[in-house]
């Protein structure tokens, strides 16, 4: 073969190769799908959730209305005196509202949930209560002296560490001294306000916070009533499917593991790495209702699992032939509630210090529930354990 002919053949081969390779044009690859629960069964678990959330949100708004009235009374009382009685009434109403919110803590689904981890999450829960991430007594004190909560952009210009129920707890329960170290530079303003001024500002500030929280709760309730309840049941937007919706409800229940068990109990008890005074990490350090709030978390968990007469996770489990799992879970929750209620009058930090055995009993009761949630419960329902909890082996 002469060189020219070879070159021609080479060029022809080059084009032939191009043609051959073109045959390899990629095509979509079918793949077997994974196992999933029957859609109609999933509805059993999803059906009561939206209604439960609406109900709790409405209750919460009602509680806030009561609290606002108490705060208004406190404001008026402060004009003529120290308003101690009215403040105590407001504190009591705060605890009622907070108890309701602690149930809603277990129901962070959709817009209330974290935008980082939840489908349709918009961080609205943080607008009402951001513990444990962003609470700061000093920030609240700073805003107390600056007194700009009535400005239109107050709640958008400031981080959540200066508002919400945790800030409200501070306003109602904190001593009259400021938490800020001197370098923050509000000492002079604080002194200038005096006790009366601080009380008056706190009352005003508290009403602003209540109004903001109520606005969020109302927005959530409206959206759940208008669309989300139905969307959740149908697995519609923002959820991609009923399976995803179910998993999101399940992820919300994991608050009991990550927050209730680990953050509210394990950390203050020193069961996690803690080089400081661990009891300072209790949730309700000012109002001393940590244990009762844990009980409310358990109550809401049980409500989700039980659902209504003919639905709920227990009904789903029963339909799938795992009624024993439902019974075991319900029993564990009931037991944990009983343990919590038996010691809810005692501040958690005192309980940990004075009666560590009781604290451990409470922790273990909650842990039994979370173990079931991440064990058979998840296995049977083909649920994805949240990645934050996947490696938890304490």
């Amino acid at each position: 073969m002469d060189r020219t002919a070879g070159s021609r053949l080479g060029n022809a081969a080059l084009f032939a190769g191009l043609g051959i390779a073109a045959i390899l044009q990629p095509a979509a690859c079918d793949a077997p799908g994974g196992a999933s629960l029957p859609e109609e069964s999933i509805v059993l678990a999803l059906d009561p959730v939206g209604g439960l959330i609406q109900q709790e949100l409405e209750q919460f708004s009602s509680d806030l209305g009561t609290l606002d009235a108490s705060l208004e009374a406190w404001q008026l009382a402060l004009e003529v005196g120290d308003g101690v009685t009215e403040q105590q009434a407001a504190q009591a109403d705060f605890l009622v509202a907070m108890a309701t919110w602690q149930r809603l803590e277990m129901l962070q689904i959709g817009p209330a949930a974290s935008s980082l981890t939840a489908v349709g999450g918009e961080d609205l829960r943080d607008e009402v209560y951001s513990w444990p991430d962003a609470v700061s007594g000093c920030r609240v004190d700073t805003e107390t002296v600056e007194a700009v909560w009535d400005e239109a952009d107050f709640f958008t210009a400031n981080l959540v560490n200066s508002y919400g129920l945790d800030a409200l707890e501070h306003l109602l329960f904190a001593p009259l001294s400021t938490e800020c170290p001197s370098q923050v530079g509000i000492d002079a303003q604080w002194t200038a306000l005096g006790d009366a001024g601080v009380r008056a500002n706190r009352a005003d500030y508290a009403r602003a916070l209540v109004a903001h929280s109520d606005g969020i709760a109302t927005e959530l309730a409206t959206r759940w009533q208008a669309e989300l309840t139905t969307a959740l049941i149908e697995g519609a937007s923002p959820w991609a499917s009923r399976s995803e919706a179910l998993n999101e409800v399940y992820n919300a229940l994991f608050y009991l593991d990550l927050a209730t068990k680990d953050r509210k109990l394990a950390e203050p008890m020193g069961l996690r790495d803690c080089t400081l005074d661990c009891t300072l990490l209790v949730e309700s350090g000012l109002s001393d209702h940590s244990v009762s709030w844990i009980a409310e978390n358990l109550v809401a968990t049980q409500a989700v699992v039980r659902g209504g007469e003919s639905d709920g996770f227990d009904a789903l489990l029963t339909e799938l032939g795992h009624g024993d799992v439902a019974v075991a879970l319900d029993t564990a929750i009931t037991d944990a509630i009983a343990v919590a209620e038996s010691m809810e009058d005692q501040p958690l930090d005192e309980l940990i210090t004075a009666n560590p055995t009781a604290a451990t009993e409470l922790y273990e009761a909650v842990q039994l529930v979370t173990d079931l949630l991440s064990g058979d419960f998840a296995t049977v329902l083909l649920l994805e354990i949240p990645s934050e909890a996947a490696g938890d082996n304490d």
Partner: protein
Amino acid sequence: MVDALLGPFMDPGSRTFWGGLVASAAVAGAVWLSGGHASPGRFLAALRHRSTWLDVQLYVGRRLLGLALAGATTGAAFALATHGVRRIDALLGRPELSADPTVIVALYSVCLFVAWDLSRFAVHYAMHRIPALWAIHQVHHSAEVLTPLTFHRIHPLESLVYQLRGLVVTTAMATGFFWLFREAASPWTLLGVHGIGFVLNVASGNLRHSEVWLRFGPAENWLISPAQHQIHHGLGTDDRNFGTWLALWDRLAGTLELAGPEPVAAFGIAPETRNHGDDLLSAWFGPVRDMLGGTRMHAAVAAMLLAAGVARAEEPTPSDEAPSEPATETPTASEEIAPQAPEADTPAPEAAPAPEAPAPDADEPTPDARAVPAPETEVPPPASATEDTALPPEDEPVDDGSDWDDWDSEDLIVYAPDGTPRVAGSAHQVDAETLETWEYDDIEKVVTTVPGITTRGEDGFGLRPNIGIRGVNSDRSAKITLLEDGIPLVPAPYAAPAAYYFPMSTRLVGVEVFKGPAATTHGPQTVGGAINLKTRDVPEGPDGGLDLAMGLRGTYKAHAWGGTGGKRAGILGEVVHLQTAGFKQLDDGGPTGFARTEAMLKGFVQPADGHRVQVKLGFAHESSHETYLGLAMSDYEVNPYRRYAASQLGDMAWNRTQAELSWKADLGAVRVHTVAYHHWLSRDWTKFNRFASGIDTHDLLQADPSGGSAAAYMAILRGEADSLTPEQLLQIGTNHREYHAFGVQTRGRWEVFGEGWSSTLRFGLRVHGDRVYRRHTEEAHAMTGGQLVHAGEDTEVLLDARSSADALAVHVQEDFEVGRLHVLPGSRVEVIQTEQHDVGDSAKSPTLRAVWLPGVGMLAALSDGVDVFAGIHKGFSPVAPGQPAEVDPEVSWNSELGIRAHSGGLHGELTGYVNDYLNLTGQCTISGGCDGALVDLQFNGGRVLVVGLESVVGQTWMLPNGWKLPVEGTYTLTHGRFRSDFVSSFPQFGSVSAGDGLPYVPTHSGSGRIGIETRRLRLGLGATARSGMRDIADSGALDEDDIPALLLLDAAAEAQVLPNLAVYATGTNLTQSTAHTSWRPFGARPTAPLQVMVGLKLSPATR
């Protein structure tokens, strides 16, 4: 190199010539015996003094610099002389005086001696009077003891000053004499000038820097004695006796002091005025910083640049005392290029006018006579210079029967005579010329010109590149086999294959990429392919080069190499330094750049024909202010180069050593290359790991929240809010890791030729061990007022563990050729035992895995220069130590079909491939976005199908007048899809559904290069482009959480302005694209911005 280091002691023209030292010792002995101030004990004590140690360092440092720049000044001197004689001819005509050579010798000697001595006095005097010059000259005066070595205690910049002085004086004198006397002033005639300096050196030169108190009595009014020079070195008496030999100049200046009976009590300078310490770097950079009053970086670079220029002056000036060495000892370029230029109407002396006249006062070395111009009629073109002088006859390689280049393991791609790669599968090479042209300092830019390769940018510099081939995950390039000269280069290729070390691309002379069956001979990662990085070989004959460059944002590069080799032995040294101030802006203004230095030494001996033993040693160091923390998109859009305050403690530092001993044996039909290697790397990376709350930083930055507690975390990252709760503390982690990789690897081939057929059996055996120690710690910090403040809590140890891997790998591949057909069956076996245990835990449970990886390839030559090839092989990626039992190795069946053409200036390759993964794995690295608890864990990714098409087409057109127009383009189509549903903690997988696309694998990618070249000029314009990529396995259209498409334009230009000097400029990211290249590890990471580098390359004119 040894010669170069010892040259000043072997060169009769040098003051420290051994003969002169012996003579000085004899004189010192006489002084001692006569009861004078001298004693062997004091001399020995002086040698042990720390001051002398700095003398040695400065000497060695300057000699090494001198190696790097050998010949660099020759061209300049040559041109000066040529132009000088021509100009005088043109202005004044040609006198052509005749004179007795003896008279010329005498006249030239005296004139040069006086001119040198006067000029040295003047410069020396200025050194003491001008603060900027004193800043460098005080290095010489800071000597606290004097020995003959103190003569070499000179700052490189001072050498430069004296070199320029010497060049001017000598060129003027030589030019004048050649103009006046032409041929009568032949070089041998000028040899006579050497005599004056030689005599003076032998007499007393070395005692000037000694503690032997030798006086000349009344003669000190005319000649400077050693004692007078010691007075000049005395503490507080350095303002007198500036002269070198003649005292006349000091008398005229009023600075002459005669020596008294008592010796100088103390030498040196006042400590408070000293600008340097007792180590080499301090002595180099301290004075420059002092002189410039600038930053350390400016000083360092200035020193490097100037030191390079000084290199040739490092011959310690015979000048100092003696008129210098004979120029004829080393032929000049002019000699060799036009030794007897008959037409030369200007004289073309064979030797440079070797001048080196008396050197000043000891202070400095003087230029080398070889640097002195030798008038020539024509400046030789680079090519002819290269051909004629690069390989002097005596150094030309001798054919010893071993055609090393043909089968060298460092050259893993075998080429047919027509230039077509003869490899069972797809193979590509980025050659030395391309690397030289583009001068990329980022390896990712180099490899993206090869089809099938994808990268995920991270730091913008390519310090720790993420490279994938044919769809394999690119995290830390852990899924591809990386080799340096055929030896695995990553810190622990089996136990921890993440490529935390990568050689600097600027020192590479070739990059080879193997895919498909071609990768089976290079394990352990054989799914995607292998990349072999070729380092410089020992040159044949003396050779060297220097590359100095600077660019935007305080970017400086210095690259020097030099060596020589012959038939029996050779040696090569290479040093690269690259540093930059970085292109990111930390919120608190802190540093974001890096500095990296790498050095390599190669030496070989060839004890017998067909046997070569080579040693390769390497050292590398990096210090970089790198972080894993990127940006939220709202901030990225404002300033993509911002770095949050939370990244202010980011700091990576590592050191690496490399030792390899190889033996190549050519046994006729069988050739074997065996290498024993040991690589060690120790690194500490301190950086923001996470928030104490455990919030996912990657998700946080991608969500870019404006409300909720997540917004508070964002504010803390930015330094705009303080950490107020324990959850908001920032965990600053330091991952300390120490890697040892060692082993013995043998590769060889056995050729048998028959009638119409041939058989080449390639085989290899590797016995390898990895040892990895990991200690990961975290310390909680609070963000307070925009600064990270230690929270006072104890350091938390996250991991304190050792892991190991021992592997035995065997491969064979037969290349059976019949006519135009090659059949290449091959097989690889890997037996790997891994183990991991916590420190202090004696329980060990090793895991043993063995895998057989068969493959077969076919290659058919359709015609001259056109091959088709096809192949199928089993790919494998091992399981690292300490993985959960359920983790499986990555295994795939890979097949390909391609055609390759090489005809004249045209080359092309088109390959289609299918990689069918039985299990694709991901490995958690923080760089990949994993949190600390998951780091180093591997995850099954199930079945994956990757289908792709790779193409490259290039053509070089030869244009009139020696111009070339090379054009090359590549295109890669990659279509990778998961084939099963699963949920993974590996963040790039997440919740996967069948049909989801692979993360960080673009569907379309390509590159294009066009250039125009002549011998003296090269211009190039290049582009790389890719489509968008997924940040996480997903389907559907890409969105804002994915990675956008990217187009980058680069340009390069290089001009050979002198035979030994090229200047170049490169520009990268000319369109100033700000598209982000990754969301990993945490947040959006930018493409490096526009960078412009300008530099010069010096090489012997003979190359």
